[in-house]
């Protein structure tokens, strides 16, 4: 695809949890827990009224049909701040400092005074009904292989509560994650190539990881903003795998191009979306469709709409394996139904040709017209079909702006409309924080080593190969490496390649390398240094450490690979010479070859060949 011609534009938003001692606004630890909660709190949220001119009937309805939120909390793991039963404590200065370090690495301008804001979020993920957030820095940049990318904003905010489950208007959240400091780094939408977006994400990840941030699944979250010239801005949330990013961009571009194609076709057909919602209960009185008969027997309704000129287009693929119909269904599902039926996929699912004919009759369909059916409880079905109607109307005019959720196969599904202007106001419970020039200068003169600088330094200092060094940096093992080297005289390449390659291979073979700590590795290398094991036996010992209890030496012993001392070797050689005194007498120095073989067999590799050779030579010489 010619992305330049398509006018592809992308922006990245990265959320990274910080590894501070405490949460952003309370003294709780920044740890998740799987313990059984001690309490379950029931809460409701309602939007605070804004500048409403009259009673907002929609808000009134909403508040009568409100969602129940259950918050799982703990005696010690969480406190009253997370449960919104205590005002926030003062801002965590450790978190602000980390934010300033990252801002400095990204060449950003740090603001003079930090103000904490409340950003209204009433989906329950924040107990207060708002997320606390503040702007730390603006206008920075990042250098990538594809050129400079502008970093627009860096915000320090609190992470949301963890969503545990949802059913029937009841959403369960756990408070452990709420309040963990989170950095939000936003680039401007100037990224032009799918590979570049991956590069930017990778580089930003590296910058973040040069400071005190959390590691592991779920601690960093990437959102991708994508648009093409004729399409619309779409935000794809929760892209986990960087390698998937280019594919994800490609699929989104395809989706938008296909939607544009469908739109043009609809326009040329002068397509229309009928406003009337039809009840088809009569037609499906005796249906074979399980979904429909179940909805009807539960007192629900079968509702249908007519889409003039849509026939054949609803079944068109927009992303690999996902059709235009899937797009429409995404909107319906948000209203709680399990899906829709559309004409292009029928007959199927127990809906027969006869049914289709009767529907066509009822809706007065012409050759190019399509229909969509939803069957469920009345209110749900009605809301769902209205959403489909709304989406279908948009499809004639434009590609809609949306927030979508990243799927594992590099596709995405509809989540909600793009958020409108943020509803933000100041958090009055937290005083503002002045950031002094001295503080900024102090931070700037003590910036952590960036990944590339680190790589170059260890290459120079330890004479490592480029490949080992970059693996160590990428795997975040430089600290471990340098720790081992601080006490070991072994050659850096042996230690480096063990950390860079061996561990990875061992893990791939199913060994639990997470059991290893640096002390174990240090002790293992010390065995080589002390001549107790051979270098080649290191991985054998590490495998043992992954799977058994005991120190490296104990494991080496149980593996029977401990080298013999010179004295022990001498003793064995004396025995061999004694047993073979005849050969020595006969051949003199010529016996070394034969005796070497016998010795090595008896020593089972637990002695250095050079030593054995030397001992034999000295001793035979002495006998003579």
């Amino acid at each position, binding site marked *: 695809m010619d992305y330049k011609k398509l006018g592809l534009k992308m922006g990245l938003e990265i959320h990274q949890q910080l590894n501070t001692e405490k949460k952003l606004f309370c003294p709780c630890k920044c740890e998740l827990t799987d313990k059984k909660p001690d309490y379950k709190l029931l809460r409701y949220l309602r939007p605070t009224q804004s500048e409403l001119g009259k009673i907002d009937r929609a808000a009134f309805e909403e508040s009568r049909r409100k969602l129940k939120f259950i918050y799982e909390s703990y005696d010690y793991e969480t406190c009253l701040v997370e449960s919104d039963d205590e005002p926030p404590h003062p801002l965590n200065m450790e978190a602000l400092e980390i934010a300033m370090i990252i801002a400095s690495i990204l060449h950003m301008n740090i603001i003079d005074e930090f103000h904490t804001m409340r950003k209204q979020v009433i989906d329950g993920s924040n107990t207060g009904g708002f997320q606390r957030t503040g702007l730390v820095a603006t206008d920075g940049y990042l250098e990538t292989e594809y050129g400079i990318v502008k970093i627009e904003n860096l915000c320090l905010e609190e992470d949301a509560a963890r969503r545990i489950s949802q059913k029937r208007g009841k959403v369960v959240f756990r408070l452990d994650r709420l309040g963990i400091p989170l950095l939000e780094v936003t680039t401007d939408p100037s990224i032009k190539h799918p590979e570049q977006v991956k590069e930017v994400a990778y580089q930003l990840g590296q910058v973040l990881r040069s400071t005190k941030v959390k590691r592991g699944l779920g601690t960093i979250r990437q959102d991708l903003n994508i648009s093409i010239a004729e399409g619309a801005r779409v935000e794809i949330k929760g892209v986990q795998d960087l390698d998937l990013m280019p594919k994800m961009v490609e699929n989104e571009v395809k989706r938008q191009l296909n939607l544009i194609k469908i739109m043009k076709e609809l326009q040329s057909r002068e397509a229309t979306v009928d406003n009337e919602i039809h009840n088809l209960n009569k037609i499906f009185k005796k249906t074979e469709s399980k979904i429909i008969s179940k909805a009807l027997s539960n007192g629900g309704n079968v509702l249908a709409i007519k889409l003039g000129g849509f026939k054949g287009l609803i079944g068109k693929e927009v992303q690999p394996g996902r059709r235009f119909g899937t797009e429409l269904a995404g909107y319906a599902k948000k209203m709680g139904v399990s899906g829709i039926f559309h004409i292009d996929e029928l007959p199927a699912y127990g809906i027969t040709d006869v049914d289709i004919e009767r529907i066509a009759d009822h809706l007065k369909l012409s050759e190019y017209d399509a229909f969509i059916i939803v069957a469920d409880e009345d209110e749900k079905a009605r809301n769902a079909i209205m959403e489909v109607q709304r989406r279908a109307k948009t499809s004639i005019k434009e590609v809609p702006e949306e927030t979508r959720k990243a799927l594992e196969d590099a596709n995405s599904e509809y989540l909600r409309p793009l958020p409108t202007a943020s509803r*933000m106001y100041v958090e009055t419970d937290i005083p503002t924080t*002045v950031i002094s020039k001295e503080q900024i200068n102090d931070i700037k003169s003590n910036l952590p080593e960036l990944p590339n600088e680190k790589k170059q330094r260890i290459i120079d200092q330890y004479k490592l190969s480029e490949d080992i060094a970059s693996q160590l940096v990428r795997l975040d093992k430089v600290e471990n490496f340098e720790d081992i080297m601080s006490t070991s005289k072994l050659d850096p390449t042996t230690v480096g390649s063990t950390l860079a390659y061996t561990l990875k291979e061992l893990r791939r073979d199913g060994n639990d390398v997470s059991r290893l700590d640096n002390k174990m590795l240090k002790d293992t290398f010390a065995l080589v240094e002390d001549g107790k094991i051979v270098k080649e036996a290191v991985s054998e010992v590490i495998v043992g450490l992954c799977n058994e209890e005991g120190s490296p030496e104990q494991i080496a012993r149980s593996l029977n690979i401990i080298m013999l001392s010179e004295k022990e070797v001498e003793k064995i050689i004396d025995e061999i010479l004694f047993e073979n005194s005849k050969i020595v007498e006969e051949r003199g120095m010529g016996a070394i070859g034969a005796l070497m073989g016998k010795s090595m067999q008896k020593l089972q590799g637990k002695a250095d060949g050079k030593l054995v050779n030397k001992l034999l030579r000295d001793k035979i010489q002495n006998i003579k």
Partner: protein
Amino acid sequence: MGYKGSSQKFLELSGISIGDIIKITKNNVSYQGILLDRAEDPDDKHIVLKLDSGYNIGIDVVGALAELVTKGDKPNLELPPLDMGKDVDKPDISIVSTGGTVASVVDYKTGAVHPAFTADDLIRANPELLVHANINGEAILNILSENMKPEYWAKTARSVADEINNGADGIVVAHGTDTMHYTSAALNFMLDTPVPVVVTGAQRSSDRPSSDAFMNLISSVVAAKSDIAEVTLCMHAEEDDSYCLLHRGTKVRKMHTTRRDTFRSINTLPIAKIEKGKLKLVDKNSNYKKRSNENVQLHDDLEEKVALIKSYPGIEADIIDYHIDKGYKGIVLEGTGLGHCPENLLPSLERAKDSDIPVVMTSQCLYGLVNMNVYSTGRKIVSAGVISVFDMIPETTYVKLVWALGQTENIEEVKKIMQTNIAGEIGEKSSEKYFLN
């Protein structure tokens, strides 16, 4: 305006005022946004800008250059009046506001929060109120509850009486939570009411979506429609948004600085619970005054010169002497345990008696009855003329003495009033159920 010193000068020189859209350039960076007011306490070096993204930042004016982009309009939050009409089938409930924010309007353009007091404001924020009643709103005071004082109790009592005389079927009094239980006790003594008077507030301000104000207010309106014609206090029962409890206004206390369920009945059970708009008695045998058609009676004379003094190890007699010398008309002692204070206070307590200043003993234990007959010190305190008031909590005792001294100057009558149950403040009988619930 919160600007002073160098920031104020900077704004004046740049010809910029609050609400203007301005562009500030400093070093190599510029920010554009709306100039906001600054809180009064912080320093005088920074100005506050609300950026287009919604974020506020503070900018040090040193080395900054400001340009006016657009002159701002004065924010106008005057909303057109609501014409709700009146539903003749529904009761008329008046909401009397003394301060605190039971409802607020957030102006997201500037981030300003405006407390809402009028009936229209309340209904805009809580349209559900109309399901229950015709709502009339009256803002009589706008003070933080820590700034409450006896004269404001009297003013509130008079407003409540006016509303009742004007035909209200029930009254809700919106109040800050800090001293809410003092006010609910005071209203109990000052008002003999034929309809419910329910005091309520919020632990989480109403400008946040999680505020407890909505449920407290709705539940209070439900209680104000009931037949419980006393002054009660209605607040969250649990940390959950599950139900509210209706406490007797003289036997309730704020027990936690921040929790929603901070108010607890002390030495008694709550009268009722209100769940999903329905009121249910907690104890079917509980005695409460029933709604009637009688006229409201107001006894709003108060004596403000009353002190509440806590006894503690090492307290010295001059604290008592000071109050006598300063012309205080009554003293409540929050004694230790059963109602004790150290013996070194005895001469001063005798002095108070000789000066016709009643000294009333309560217990800082809060739970249980005062009994000064068990230990010798107690008996000495009784001989010094100190009045014992059973299980009455210290705050209510203080309020009652303020009121009693407003009713009579006769010390014997004051003693009689203090020891007689008038509004459920004194219970003779204790129960296993009354502790820490």
